[in-house]
């Protein structure tokens, strides 16, 4: 059971981590396909 709970925690950590890392290194589709003068988000 411990392995199962650990795996769930790992899945959450990887999910959040992957998003942070990809955003950090500019891998979002928004960053890769538009120039800085394009505003796709209302808050950016």
């Amino acid at each position, binding site marked *: 059971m411990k392995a199962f709970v650990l795996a769930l925690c790992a899945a959450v950590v990887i999910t959040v981590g992957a998003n942070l890392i990809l955003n950090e290194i500019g*891998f979002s589709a928004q960053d890769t396909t538009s120039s800085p003068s394009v505003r796709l988000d209302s808050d950016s």
Partner: protein
Amino acid sequence: MARLIALFFMVFALPVLAQSVDRPDPNTATTGPATQSLDDILRRQDNLKVDDSERRAIIGGPEYAPSVDSPLGTRGGASDSDLWRAMRFNNGDISTQNTGPAATVLMQDAGMWWLDIRRGPLQTYGAYLLGGTLLLLALFLLIRGRIRIEGEKTGRTIERFKAFERFGHWLLASSFIVLAITGLISLFGRKVLIPAFGHDAFSTVAIGTKWVHNNISWAFMVALVMIFFFWVMHNLPDKTDLKWLAKGGGIFGGGHPPAKKFNAGQKLIFWAVIVLGGSISISGLSLLFPFEINLFAHTFDLLNGLGAPGWVGMENLPSDLSPQEEMQYAQLWHAIISFVLTAIIFAHIYLGSVGMEGAFDAMGKGEVEEQWAREHHSLWVEEVKAKQRVQPGE
């Protein structure tokens, strides 16, 4: 008054005038190669193939350019019609400030067949496949019942999976289940969820499921690599598998055929997960980084080179694909293979839980009842016992 009389005559005479114009018979009207004919339009309406290869090519060019001192001489030899036609058929020389790889495709007309498949047969047959698998499993449970441990339980247990193996399994399993649910929400959202919950509610759900689906995919890929290395050596086929398969795994009685750590059925599940899961991962990466990883033009080219489409009576597959078409094929492939793997995993979950007494302990606690192990994995138990005899201290 004279004006009124004139108006009266105009109103009533106009239709007569209009009718008196000789209309060309549409069936005999001829058009130039630059214009689509009535026949083309009718064929398109009947979903038949239209040969527009000649029309696609009429986009003007420097060779047609009038000299610079003549009217329109600076336009490079392309008329307005030529320019619009070039855009219509994606033949134009487009340059743009947008850095996206697909930004120079202003119109792509290869999307409708994909959309029709995605919202039609893909959903219908996908639902049949998953629903049918669940029905078959329920039927199997009704007919065969739970596969019980036949002999008397010993009360002793054998370690079947170590903690790190169970960790890898549950990481793969949990991420797969989340991916399957979020994937199904994405696919069936428009048809099922929007009519049920409305656009606003589904918008929030769709944004959330997309985020989760995209990011938890990494957990799935990491776990897939982990379990491959953990278990590949135990899943290489050997001759005990043939005997196991010949007896149908003993699933309908007739005794338990001998098996090592994994029987042939489990090996099939393992390789299905590795091969189909790998394929889903690669097509998923292609969708995750749009237009960066193009898989299909090259694959179709290879298949055409082998003559593979001819084996099933098909024409050559298209190997000149726009970036958007690459994504369309990737999405269909990703979804189709995911449906197949999900159906297989339904069977795996069933046998690992309600379908077989004692099976869940293997992944739950890591320890299995010795009698269960003797019945389902007799050769493996012998191996474990032999090792214990050599190293009694462990």
